[in-house]
């Protein structure tokens, strides 16, 4: 027991490293998607933008009900994080992005199966705490003195939309904080720390009574487009493609509209 030679110890180390370092990219092509045209079977993992959490949870359930042989696992995070993970070898079968820029990163890396399908749009809305303590009524009100405004940083999709809206309206916004995700912006508003935040229409809908929404006409100028694509070399390519069509088709539209997403 105690007489483990040094080379053996190295082998043990190397093996342990090999196991821990082994990303499940090369999944064995078992349970092939070659079943009949009628019955879909297979498991897929869908990587979707955080803003799709509620809708994709519903859509995955509906998809599984319609296709009893399938299971859909969901992973939600910021689009940029998800692309990075997929490029680094994460086992995703479908990717739904909150903007076209991050989708382009995936397709540029040659990881898209076919062309991405635009399935929804999202526009910005002003979120204020219930009762609207700062009395915000329009976009210009955000630039008013003493208004604690929180927005997304220009590095992230919602921040790019914010910058577009502000420059189109000729406004210089002076936020007290530039968050790295729209969830963090919403959090600052729901907690009452901020007087107003710029978030997506869908975030205001999802937050319910925790915030009030103030629509503004300039928002239409900076709509985000949401594309979805099946990821290359999926072990369940047929199911992945079916899910993409399901989301972009007549089944997906009503769920997405109800959450506040626009038609692409």
């Amino acid at each position, binding site marked *: *027991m*105690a*007489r*483990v*030679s*040094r080379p*053996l*110890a*190295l082998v*043990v*180390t190397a093996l*342990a*490293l090999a196991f*821990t370092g082994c990303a499940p990219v090369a999944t064995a092509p078992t349970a092939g998607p070659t079943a009949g045209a009628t019955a879909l079977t297979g498991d897929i993992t869908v990587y979707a933008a955080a803003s799709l959490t509620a809708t994709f949870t519903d859509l995955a359930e509906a998809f599984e009900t319609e296709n009893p042989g399938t299971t859909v696992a969901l992973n939600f995070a*910021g689009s*940029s994080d998800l692309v*990075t993970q997929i490029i680094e070898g994460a086992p995703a079968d479908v990717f739904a992005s909150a903007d076209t820029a991050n989708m382009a990163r995936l397709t540029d890396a040659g990881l898209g199966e076919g062309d991405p399908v635009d399935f929804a749009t999202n526009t910005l809305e002003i979120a204020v705490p219930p009762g609207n303590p700062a009395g915000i009524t329009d976009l210009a009100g955000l630039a008013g003195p003493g208004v*604690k405004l*929180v927005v997304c*940083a220009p*590095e*992230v999709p919602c921040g790019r939309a914010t910058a577009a809206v502000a420059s189109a309206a000729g406004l210089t916004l002076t*936020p*007290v*904080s*530039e*968050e*790295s995700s729209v969830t*963090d912006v919403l*959090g*600052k508003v729901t*907690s*009452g*720390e*901020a007087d107003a935040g710029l978030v997506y229409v869908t975030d205001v809908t999802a937050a319910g009574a925790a915030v009030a929404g103030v629509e503004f006409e300039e928002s239409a100028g900076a709509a985000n487009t949401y594309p979805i694509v099946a990821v290359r070399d999926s072990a369940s390519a047929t199911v992945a493609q079916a899910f993409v069509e399901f989301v972009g088709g007549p089944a997906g539209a009503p769920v997405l509209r109800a959450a506040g997403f626009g038609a692409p």
Partner: protein
Amino acid sequence: MQPASATYTGVPRWVLALAAIGAAFVLLPLLAMVLRVNWAEFVPLITSESSVAALLLSLRTSLAATALCVIFGVPMALVLARTDFWGQKVLRSLVLLPLVLPPVVGGIALLYTFGRRGLLGQSFEVLGIDIAFSTTAVVIAQTFVALPFLVLSLEGALRTAGSRFEAVGATLGASPGTVLRRITLPLVLPAVLSGAVLSFARALGEFGATLTFAGSLQGSTRTLPLEIYLQRETDPDTAVALSLVLVIVAIVIVSLAHRTGAPSFRRARGAS
């Protein structure tokens, strides 16, 4: 490496093997990160305006947080180590809670305390002190997570050092203040220093509570970890370069902590 087989070290080979795996587990990710650094652009990346602003803010706030940790942590450790009262054990566990609490939970708790609608926030607002989205909020978050490190290490040192010298000093007529100043604090000074270095390191790495509680704005609340988190979205090269800077600072801090911590062992051993 080789002398291990020549002289008896008291460690079976399989322990060495497992230790090697453990060490590789810690070191390999760091190596993987270093391999991704864009060296050609390294200096421009870490000296960009936003990078420098984040680094300076991090150093400034972490120093302030460390000072607060010493001011409040030393008395806390003294009370926990040198007094005996009902509920002390429970209090100790609660005070050390930030050690195990996920930082984002700490951030939420701070928000409900110092936030605009928080327990104390309204009183602060009446006084004209606005904590939300200010550098003060960053320091509060860092102090909250870093304080237990100082309390824990100092309390341990106080217990190890024992109170015999203090008892002797007291019998010779020294007041509690004199005993503290002339005996206790000199005895555990190395532990105070190493505890402060650890607190500084924890404050420097603080992310979750800051993000939740203080927000993120260049120059006022966006510390280095927050800047890394944001840059990773669009500019992975900058994120990796800044990560390396943080790792280097961490290595310097750890070696400092070892150096300042070592004498406390020697003294404790010499005393017994």
